[in-house]
Every structure is written in C-alpha cells, then in structure tokens.
C-alpha cells in the first residue's frame, strides 16, 4: 500500500479526479492548499494599492492505492495535471504501514 499525495493546479482537479476514477481509484481526499515553489507569488496593483498573492492556491489530493496500481495512478496524475508551464505541481509517494476502515474494522487492502 502506498500513499500518493499530489499538489496540482486547482483547475486541473476535475480532470485528474476523472482520470483516476477511470483507472479504478475508489476514493481520495481533496484539500484546498496554498504555498509556493518555483512559481513564486506575485504582486498586483489596483488603483495604486498593491495586492500580494504570496502563496499560490493549489489543490492537494491524497489517495491510498495498492502496490499494483501505484505506477498507473502516478502516470495518470502526471498526464492529467500537466500544462507544461511552471506551477504544475508535484507528486509525492510514501509507504503506508497500516490502514483501517473505522466502520467495519477491516484492515490492510480490504480497507482501501
């Protein structure tokens, strides 16, 4: 079991979600996040006042997948989230030690 975390551009969220559903991913968590990487924030001016957007809005998705599905899921996110421009985001992969479905107490793969 692996946890995939991806920071993507907000307007790519639907596309990524649909692509992941198509390959059989059953659930994910989505969060509105803000941050910066290479794509720095910027300052806009309106009527002489400056408005700084120092943290760029992004969407974060988190999903747990079985080892067999990892490669495919990552490729899917990569393809769907790509615009080729700065700020397309990042994907993180990490191992998951255990997973429990609270309602039933199922553990491991069954809990996905």
């Amino acid at each position, binding site marked *: 079991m692996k946890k995939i975390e991806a920071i993507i551009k907000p307007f790519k969220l639907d596309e990524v979600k649909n692509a992941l559903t198509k390959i059989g991913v059953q659930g994910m968590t989505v969060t509105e996040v803000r941050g910066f990487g290479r794509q720095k924030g910027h300052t806009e001016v309106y009527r002489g006042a400056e408005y700084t*957007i120092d943290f760029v*809005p992004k969407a974060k998705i988190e999903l747990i997948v079985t080892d067999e599905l990892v490669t495919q899921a990552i490729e899917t996110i990569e393809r769907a989230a790509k615009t080729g421009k700065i700020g397309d985001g990042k994907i993180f992969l990490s191992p998951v030690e255990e997973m429990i479905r609270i309602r039933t107490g199922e553990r491991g793969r069954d809990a996905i």
Partner: protein
Amino acid sequence: MQFDLGITRNGLIDTKILMAKEVSNQSSPREFLRQHSDMVDGLVRKAFQKAQSQVSAPSVCLIAVGGYGRAELAPYSDVDLLLLYSSSKKEELPPLIEKMLYPLWDLGLEVSCSSRSINECLKMAQSDLQIKTGLIDGRYLDGEYEFFRKLYGLFTKKVLHRTVQKFAEGLAKDLYLRNQKYEDPAYALEPNIKEGEGGLRNFQIGRWIIRAKYKTDRWDSILFPDHSRMLDISLQFLWAVRNQLHLLSGRRQDNLTFEFQEKIAPILGFPPGTKGIEEMMRQYHLSTQRISNFVYDILERALHEPSWVKKFFFFFQRKKIDENFGTAYGELHLFDPVTFKRDPSQLMTLFRHCQTYRTNMDFRMEEAVVEALPFIDDRFRQSEEVNQTFLSILRKGERVETLLKKMHELGFLSRYIPEFSEIAGKIHYDLYHVHPVDVHSILAVEELGKLRDGLYQKDYFLLTSLSREIEKTEILFLTTLLHDIGKGMDGDHSSIGEKMVKHIGERMGLSMEDRELIGFLVSHHLFMIQTAFRRDLHDEQVILRFANEVKNLNQLKMLYLLTFADIKAVGPEAWTSWKNTLLMELFLKTSHFFEKGAVATPFLKGDEMIQKLQESLSQEIISEYAEHLPDRYLSCYSSAEITHHIEMARSIEKELLLVEWEIEKETQAKVTVCTKDRYGLFSKIAGSMFLNRLNILEAQIHTWGNGVALDTFWVEDATKDMKSRLQQFKKDLVEMLSGKIFLKDLLSKRKVSNGIKQKVIPRVPEEVKINNQDSDFYTIVEVIGEDRVGILYEITQALTDHGCDIHFARVSTLGNRIVDVFYVQDAWGEKIEEKNRIDQLKRTLSRLMGKD
C-alpha cells in the same frame, strides 16, 4: 408479584402503527397524539390501580405533566408522571411507584415519575424553570382529585400569574441558549424537530407565556385568525413529521436526518425523489420560521410592554416625524392605526423611517403592518413613490439586511415582490447549501452590508474598497437579494432569474440600463466562480474571454462583490482564503485588461468567428479546435483562411511540417508555415529565409493552445526566382527541424550576398522597448529600426538566446523602417521580470539595430 396490563410490548407497537395509519387517513396528526395519549392513559391508570390494590399506601394523586400532560404524546415520547402525596407519609411511596412502573417499562414505555408534596411542588416551581413549565401542562389522571385542585389553585395564583416578567425573561434566555446550540449549520440541514429553532419546544415557550400573561390556554385567542390558522398548520405539519420519525426509527428520534427525510417525504404525500424531499424540507422551514416568528413576537410583548408608569413617563418624550408617524420610547409608532389601510404606500415609508431614525417598530406596529398586507396590490407594486422609497432605502445602504429581514418576516417582502415567495423556505437537497434560498438571499445582502460597514476591512481590503466605490449601491443590493430568484422555477436558475429580475425591474420602474445591468448580473452570478476555480488564470485567453463576457470594469466590480456575498452566505465554511485568492486574481487581471484596453484590443469577435466557421467545418472539428484558437489569432484571419489552417493543422499529425505559398506579382509571396511549436522556431524560420535570400516584409506568428504554430510571412525576392527559393527554404527548414543540419553551419557557409539593391537612404533611429506593464501574461518586446536583410533572423535569434519563447509576433516593414512586436515568455511560461535580464536583452537588441 408483577401483574399483566393485558397487552404485550409488540402488541403495543402494532397498536401504535395501526392507530397512526387510521388517523393519517382521516384526520390530523394532533388527533393521533390525543388518541395515543388516551391509550397510554388507560394503561397508566390500570397500572396505578393494580399497584394500589397490592400495596398499602397513603392516598395520592397521579398527574400527567409535560407533553403527556397536554395529551400530545408522540409515538415514543416520554411519559412524565407526578405523584402528589400529603406531606407525612413519604417513605411508603417507593413500593407503590415500583409496582406501578415496572409493568409500564416492560411495555417499552419511557415512563418517569417524580413524587412530591404540594408544598415541594410550589417551592421547586418557583426556582426551577423546567419544573414550572412541566407543571403548567399538568393533567389529572387518577387518585385524590382534591390534591390536584389544591395544587393548581395555588400554583396559578402564587407562581404562574405572579412573576410573568421574570418567567418571560427566563424563557427568553432558555430560548436564546437553545437556539445558539442548534445554530450550527449541520442542524439547518438535519434539523432537530423538537429542540431546534422554530421547533416544537419553541412553540411551547410561546404558549406558556400566553398562559402566564393572558391567563388563557387558548393561544390562538390573542392572534389574528389568519395568523393562528397558519401557525396551526405549521404545528400540525411538524407533528406529522415527528410522528413518522418516531414510528420509523422505533424510538424517540427528533433529529430529522437525511436518511429519514428520504423515507418520510413519500409517506407524507410528497412526490418521489429529490424533488419531494426538497418540497418537504421547504415546508418544514416555512413552518419553523412561522413558529419562530410567533415565539419572538410573544416574548417581545411579554418583555417590552411598558408598564403604565413608563408610559406616563415617556409621554413627554414623544416626537412627531410626520403626520402619520412619531417616535416614543425609542420605537416608532402610528398616530392613527388605520393609516396603512387608508394609504398602503405608508408601509414603505415606515421602513424608511426605521432606517432614518435607527429605530425598531414595536409589536403593535408590526400587527398593523400584517393587517394591512392584503392592501398591497399591483397599484402599490407599480407606484413610483413606493418604489423610489424602496430604492432609496437600498441606496442609503444602512441596516439594509435588518430591514429586509423584517420585511420578509412580516410577509411584506413577498407581497411587494411576489416572486420572492416562491423561494421562501426552498431548500437544496445537498450538503453545501445550508440555508433555504430566501434566508440565503438575505444573508448575502447582510454580507454586502458588513463589507460596506468595514467589518472585513482587514481581511478583504480590496472588496471593502470596491463596495464603497460602486456607483449604484441600490442595484447591487437589489441584485443580491434577487440573484437566486430563479430557483423557485424548474430549469437553469440563472437564465430564468435573468428574465424574472428584468420583469421585476420594469415593474419597479427602473431604467432600461439598470434592468439590463441586473439581468446581466443575475444571469452571470456563477460565471466568475466557474472561471476562477475551473480555468487556468495564467492563460491569457481565459482572461480575455472572461473580460469579453463581462464587458466593462463596473460590471466586473459588481460581479465580484455579488460573488463574494453569494459564497459567503452559503455557509460559514464556503468562503475560504483560497477561493478569495483565486477570485481576486481573476478580478485584478481582468481589471488590468479593461484599464489598458487599447493594447489588448486585438481580440474581440472571437465568438463571431467561431460561429462563422461552422459553415465550413464540422461540429466535431470545431469543438476540438475552438478552445485552442486564441482570439488574437481569430481576429487576424478570414474564416476561409482559418478553415484552411485547421486543415493544415490536422495533417501535421502525420508530417513534421507544412509549408504553403502563393506567389503574387512574381517578386512577392505569402508563405504559410504550420508545425508543432518548439523553442526557437521563429528564428529557425527567419534564418532559413535569410539563407535563401527571402526578405521578410511582414510576419504574423501565432501559437495555438494545443501547441500548433501557425505563421504567415510576406516575403520579397528581387531575382524573380521565387519558386525555387521557396522550395529550397522548405527543404532547409525540414532538415533543420529534424536536426540533420544546424542553422549556424549553413549560415557560416553562405556569407551575405544581398539580392536587393542597396540604395542610399536616410538612417532610421533605433528604438528598443521592453514592456511588462501592458500584459499580465507576456513581456512585450518592441523593436524599431532600419531594415536590412536578415535582421529578423538576428532579432529572433537574440530573443531565443536570451531564453525568450515567442508566442505572438507582428512584423512589418514601412519603407526602410521595421516595426516588430514580440510577445514573449520564459521557458516556464512566465514573464521576463528580472531587471538584469531585461537590461541585457535590451543591450543586445540595441546593438543589433545599431549595426550597419
């Protein structure tokens, strides 16, 4: 030894269900409550009598209290009993109570029983609000009637009627705490039918106060007949829902959760599916709103009716406002109670006075308003005086939400704008929309008011200042109030709403211009949300199309403010700083576009062109390409040319490169190059042309959203050998793009040997401008200078060397002067903003232009 009550636990459940069925077929839910209560009375009496016969106990009196005392017993409500005894023989009671309760408990009844002496009762009722309210509803069941008579004689005289004011204060506090507890938005979606705001408990509070203050149990006797009839319908509806809730869950369940909403709606005769649930919940919210208004009204009367001393004292503080209204003790009052009936337009004046004098109306005034509602007719709705007064209230902008709320609560708003009644209590069956549409609409107005009052100054400075620079405040408030008006109808609520508000605007006598503005804002009230959250704000095309649709800065500002108010009013968690950032970015970029319109104008008409293309291209192809074609590109070519370009683009899927030309006048040709865009493409083309002695007179290069580069060149060749030179050019370019040869190798082989005759001409001063202000997306490089062969290649190569990707270019030659404009970004799709990079680029370009 335990005795038998003649019925089993399951038998009792069956009886209840059967009873519910029979009753729901013919009469009201109240009838069920009564019949159920009667049945339980029978069981309780039987248990009491049998217990008495088995235990030797002193004489006692059995009383039903609470909801059971009112004979309003829902299927699984608690059965609360009170055992009154004469003071001395307390210790003999427990065996009796035990004997009585066990068999009842065995039947699954939630029975609780307290035993007190008359004095204890009175004492506790004085200090404990709950015991007091429980006693109010007491009903004699069995045993010593004399005890009951004595208790209630004393209770009414010494407790209930003595401290009405304090009682009302206690209940008001209780109500406040209760409502606060259930204020959480989760309860708006899954309300608690008993304890929630406007729930059954709220109604009881009103009723207890009436009982205490007006010494009557007929709560309807102090209300207008219409009012009490509506209230009764609301009450019956809540009971009907609650009865089903208990029966379905098989326990005392008062939370109307989604699960049960779904099950109960069809049972109560609502249409199947989501629609039925929404209708049921709408009725639910309308009912609780009525009950809530009722209890606040009653509390208001009990708490604020001034004593005669006060009246006398304030008599001297009365002030006259005009011939109809005056103020006294900080509240507005009428000189003549029939004013509104004589002249209904005074109703609107009343609300303006409330705003102007910052006062509230007392309950008598509210009654007068309610009484005059039937006099609001079409003449009233179209009256210039009334409408101007209404608009002036909105224009002034102070306390608008409070006044609108009051107008709505009194039923005035729905009479004045009948369309508004369609959205009253209307709910969405989802988790996002917490409030019914009418409540949401008024909350949105409130958010706008808070913005103007500066409550969000720190967090949302931009929105705050925008809210104050808007010219037509009244239009913005009116739009906000009516933005969801289309939700009362089936279909797309934005476009239905547009028609409705235009109609309403016409009735109110708004100008054509204002009607169009409101119509636009209502029809587009989700447009900014859709663009900001679902489109790439770093794509210029997105901003251009948004701007094109919004049309001008004023509409943009209003749309932004409306969007803020709309989201903020959805629920406490709907508006996040994340959404704020995206919306702000969209606003700022679009506002820049409007302010610098002149530089960015070569767009427009994009939609028209797409329409036109439908004549020559299939729908399938258009839908594939339309979103990728920049408006700037669409405005440069005819539909026939664009059609042809798309055909070219479709075939470069297979081929690397397509080059086409049309030779005109032997020495000139128009060359079209279509290929996949790549870094430095323009300089490679310009270089290949230079190699083949094709002098570029004009060029337009465009990059489509899908990465297709579509470039057109007007070239000149003095030797009249155009065709072979063009063929060679194509061959060179193909080899260069496929990496077989390198441009700089070819160039070093062929030193410049100019085909065009050199003339002596005046020198043109060179000028290089690098501009980051005019576009939010590109750095604009402008180069002016003297023309010479190969200059375009050199410029484009320099741009490429400096890491600039050329997205759009317009190259033209005017006599011996070239005027070239390039829209460039760096490799990451960002503008070139570092000062030293700009300086370096400027130096290189200036050097190129200055060279002979």
